């Protein structure tokens, strides 16, 4: 049970990375893409091939996996630039499936017994789940901070503007094309990093684990948590992972069929969309120009001071 809980937390961490990437594309920039499984796939394969066939270490394969995945994001982003909403969704879904099909045809059985990840001579094996949890969640934290910084910079604001109104964004001198492709590349690269960790943990890669359901699940995490909100998508990843492993976790997998979990999270999404269409946490509202220092704000937060001070400088 505890062991299983740890497993879920590991998977949730890997999916949280994917959700961060999806959030960059969908939550910040407003592009409804559905091919994160493809980026995940490329990242997983890159690590597996590099570590197994070329003797790379896990850490050396990590940036290469991210870059490979980013290049794929570029290749998908450019032709689908003009598409919006549902059309973009369908096109990216198709491209994601193509990636999986190509992977299947190249090597239908995938890769087994990929070498383990090492850190300062320490081997991360699937048995020592706690160490792996620390490793993966450290990366979740790093990417969370990096993307939070992006969201609240001038670049992130430009992405938000594109999401809100592309035409108006152009009138503000924003090169929409460049930002959209940039968002795709970044989002894809993080998907690749997630794939890299997946390979490191399971030590196997199998093309059948990159179906479009994975993309749907990642999108669900983002929508469920709250689009464009860094904390929310990580929460979304945790919740969706818990729901999908719920029957096994409570030892009812013989009673509740595996398909039931899909019904459960389908239901959760429907209820949520009626009750809170903006997601559990909603979009985060950033107060620019809050004149208080970080320390003052922390103090204010813990005192739960209802008096509004910010907004003036």
């Amino acid at each position, binding site marked *: 049970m505890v062991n299983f809980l740890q497993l879920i937390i590991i998977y949730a961490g890997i999916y949280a990375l994917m959700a961060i990437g999806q959030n960059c594309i969908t939550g910040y920039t407003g592009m409804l893409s559905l091919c994160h499984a493809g980026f995940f796939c490329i990242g997983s394969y890159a690590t597996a091939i590099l570590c197994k066939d070329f003797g790379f270490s896990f850490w050396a394969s990590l940036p290469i996996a991210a870059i490979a995945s980013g290049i794929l994001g570029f290749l998908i982003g450019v032709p689908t630039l003009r598409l919006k909403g549902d059309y973009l969704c369908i096109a990216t879904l198709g491209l994601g499936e193509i990636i999986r099909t190509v992977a299947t045809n190249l090597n239908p059985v995938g890769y087994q017994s990929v070498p383990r990840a090492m850190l300062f001579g320490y081997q991360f094996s699937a048995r020592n789940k706690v160490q792996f949890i620390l490793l993966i969640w450290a990366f979740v934290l790093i990417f969370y901070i990096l993307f939070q910084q992006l969201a609240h910079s001038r670049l992130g604001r430009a992405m938000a503007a594109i999401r*809100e109104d592309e035409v108006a964004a152009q009138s503000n001198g924003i090169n929409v094309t460049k930002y959209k492709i940039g968002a795709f590349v970044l989002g894809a690269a993080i998907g690749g990093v997630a794939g890299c960790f997946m390979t490191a943990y399971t030590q196997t890669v199998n093309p059948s684990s990159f179906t479009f359901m994975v993309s749907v699940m990642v999108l669900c995490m983002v929508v469920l948590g709250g689009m464009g909100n860094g904390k929310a998508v990580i929460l979304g990843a945790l919740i969706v992972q818990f729901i999908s492993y719920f029957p096994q976790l409570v030892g009812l997998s013989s009673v509740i069929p595996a398909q039931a979990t899909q019904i459960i999270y389908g239901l959760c999404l429907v209820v949520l969309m009626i009750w809170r269409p903006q997601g559990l946490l909603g979009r985060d509202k950033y107060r620019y120009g809050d004149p208080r220092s970080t320390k003052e704000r922390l103090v204010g937060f813990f005192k739960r001071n209802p008096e509004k001070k910010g907004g003036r400088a």
Partner: protein
Amino acid sequence: MKILETQNLSRIFGGVVAVNDVNFSVYEGMVNGLIGPNGAGKTTLFNQITGMDKPSRGKIIFDGKDITGLPAWKISRLGIARTFQNIRLYKELTVVENVMMGLHFKVGKDPFKARFSQAFKSYFLARQENKELYLKALEWLRFFDMEDEAQEFARNLPYGRQRELEIARALAAEPKVLFLDEPAAGMNPAETEHLMFIVDKIKKHGITVVLIEHDMKLVMNICDNITVLSFGQKIAEGSPEEIKNDPLVIEAYLGREED
């Protein structure tokens, strides 16, 4: 002095000639009115000048440079800002963020060079840059008496204020020419009055204004020069007095007498 002009500009949508061989001039430092009945092609002309629509024929000269066919974002950076007939605000962003977007490309020395290093800086020094942008944006909000609403979501503003915020966002880029597409549409008389005051203030600020408007009282009061479009063609140009008494204009608005 002409700061912008179109030469034989045309736009054809399938069978409809929305803009037909128009020579439109914008005079520096003036409030230039563009009027005409519904469907005359005013918005289409704006869209072509601001790069949001490609001309079928003709040329657009701005500040001595040919800007025909440039992408909209580049044209904006050259110093042309606009508002839209159907308000286009960033609704889920706050009021002050909307104005900060107007300042987007004002960051850095040259908007065309050092893009990468600028992006790099924008990312790592976001806090400092945000503060600068925020203070500048707040100044523009003060211009519109809107600082109290700075942290409000744009969608929560009343309609008239939304129109003003759109103007604030466009102005923040400190353009050479500001295009306003029916800024008074949907405003009540008091709001219209305030708008006239604002346009006058903008003019005094040294920014050239081009204004599409149906409210004749407003147009005749604040425009220095008026161009009239009808069925895609320019039918008159001149001072408010001349336009008021032009038989072609009267005909376009009221119809021919024997009809």
